[in-house]
């Protein structure tokens, strides 16, 4: 049996320490990343749904209706900040995602409350994200019950007798998109984005580093080839691969899971391709910065991991702290998720998605420009 030799062990230990100390990037990554991630994710994993942007159509405009709106605000679940007139405006708010819930108060609300009748109020909830929708619906129902009991007792005091069995206030909730609230419908489109991103970013991030590791880069820099030529030449094959893989994954979503897009399929493919190019640009940028394939992989993970939590993939961005919302805004996936969910679930067109699409365009162009710039044709 061989004896454990401490000296050998110590020598290896020392050598490894030196390795790590020399490689600054890995050192920072090894120490800071787990902490940063723990902090970020600790905040992000917050299933409490709060302060959903809400639009109100108050047709009654009475003291009673205003009191109801205040009670809704006091639940903390909804922020009834936007006031509109008519269904069309409500639809606009919900389609664009500016509001996730709507409250519709009928014109005769005050009269019915005062006249001891039953008042009906409609609450529409965006069901794209079933977790959020469920939370809001139960909150609304609780509120309706509480208010009713309050009114009931007021009426009891005023009349001296009960006014019948029906509740004075009936808050009717309706789920707008994804009415049976299948979380699959919500998750599959998002998964498409996430998986595409992981695979493609990983693939492309190796493309240039590999040349560096093999020594072929040294030959390439002495040729007249331009950085942008090299970049685009490396990018295009991956666009094709990405497009094929995207098509397959979408077909799987549609036929296997039965999640059929409500909106335009050509538009979906067009914007998904745009997203693809953005991801490829990220991969190339990583590849031109990294010195080894291992580094490239680590950098890719730094982008991928937060994407899962900060993009709105699992948790609604609206309920995150401001800082995390801003961080999420730096991720292309965030915009793509709005696009896929918009097309899959709401069936909206480019008129609601152009902002997100333009943002993706900007990402792609800026990232490619940086990648080309970063890739210098010198060996210094």
């Amino acid at each position: 049996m061989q004896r454990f030799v401490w000296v050998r062990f110590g020598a290896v230990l020392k050598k490894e320490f030196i390795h790590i100390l020399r490689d600054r990037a890995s050192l920072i990554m090894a120490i800071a990343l787990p902490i940063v991630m723990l902090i970020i994710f600790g905040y992000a994993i917050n299933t409490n749904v709060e302060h959903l942007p809400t639009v109100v159509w108050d047709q009654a405009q009475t003291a009673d209706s205003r009191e109801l709106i205040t009670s809704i605000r006091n639940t903390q679940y909804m922020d009834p900040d936007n006031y509109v007139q008519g269904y069309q405006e409500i639809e606009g708010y919900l389609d664009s995602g500016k509001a996730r819930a709507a409250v519709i108060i009928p014109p005769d609300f005050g009269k019915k409350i005062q006249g001891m009748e039953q008042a009906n109020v409609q609450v529409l909830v965006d069901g794209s994200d079933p977790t959020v929708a469920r939370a809001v619906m139960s909150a609304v129902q609780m509120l309706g019950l509480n208010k009713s009991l309050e009114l009931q007792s007021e009426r009891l005091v005023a009349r001296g007798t009960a006014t019948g069995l029906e509740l004075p206030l009936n808050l009717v909730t309706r789920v707008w998109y994804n009415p049976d609230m299948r979380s699959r419908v919500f998750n599959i489109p998002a998964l498409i984005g996430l998986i595409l991103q992981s695979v493609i970013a990983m693939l492309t991030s190796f493309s240039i580093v590999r040349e560096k590791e093999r020594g072929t880069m040294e030959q390439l820099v002495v040729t007249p080839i331009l950085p942008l030529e090299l970049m685009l030449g490396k990018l295009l094959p991956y666009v094709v691969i990405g497009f094929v893989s995207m098509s397959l994954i979408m077909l799987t979503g549609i036929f296997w899971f039965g999640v059929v897009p409500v909106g335009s399929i050509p538009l979906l493919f067009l914007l998904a391709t745009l997203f693809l190019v953005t991801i490829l640009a990220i991969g190339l940028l990583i590849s031109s910065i990294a010195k080894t394939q291992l580094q490239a992989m680590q950098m890719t993970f730094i982008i991928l991991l937060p994407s899962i939590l900060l993009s709105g993939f699992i948790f609604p961005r609206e309920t995150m702290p401001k800082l995390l919302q801003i961080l999420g805004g730096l991720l292309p996936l965030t915009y793509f998720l709005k696009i896929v969910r918009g097309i899959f679930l709401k069936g909206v067109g480019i008129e609601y998605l152009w902002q997100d699409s333009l943002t993706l365009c900007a990402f792609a162009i800026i990232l490619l420009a940086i990648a080309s710039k970063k890739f210098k044709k010198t060996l210094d």
Partner: protein
Amino acid sequence: MNLAIDCQGLVKRFGNYTAVQGVTFQIPPGKIMGFVGPNGSGKTTIIRMLCGVLVPTEGQATVLGFDVLTQPEEIKQRIGYMSQKFSLYDDLTVGENLDFYAGVYNLQGKMARAEKTRVIELIGLGDRTSQLVAALSGGWKQRVALGCALLHNPQLLILDEPTAGVDPVTRRVFWDLIHKLAKEGMTVLVSTHYMDEADTCDYLGFVFYGRLIAFGSPEDMKKSEAKDNLDDLFIYYVEHEASDDPRNLALKKGGRG
């Protein structure tokens, strides 16, 4: 202006380590210039500066009339380069590697095919074009790499230790080819550790720890210092030109002379 390479006081520092200091030489077109020097003496660094991929810390150089600092891309278009590191794509065939470099040098269609055929014949690649580079022996890999560097008919061919680890027969083939190309008017800059190869160059530069300690034609240098072989000549120069350098003590003790 008529010089193929004109190098004036080139200096390259990496941090505070000086890899090349004050290298000056000139080569007319159509000549073969050889670099000889021990490992780490700075041959590759000089070559890289001349290729326009390393920026000199000081000094200036023109290659084929173009400034290495301001016109590196002009230079790259006109030179053929074979790096010291193996730099073919292992997972591509010989033909595919040639095709790739033909494309990189902007050759297409008929032209590309013609150049490819010419190079295949020149190098004697023959029926190996469909073989994977990974399956080739070291000597054949070097020949393919040379082929890739010749596709675009460069005016200047720069070879960094092309015959390192290559068998004697292939070495001979290589040098016959180099002389043939020079006769056709191509300028060749080549680094080597073999004195027999260096002996056949038109010009020779001895590089010793970043300095060009001697430069001239092998015949002239041997005659003027009354040495009959290059080994002795090199030792002689190291002792005389760089005697202040502590590093040459090791060489003296090595007892080669």
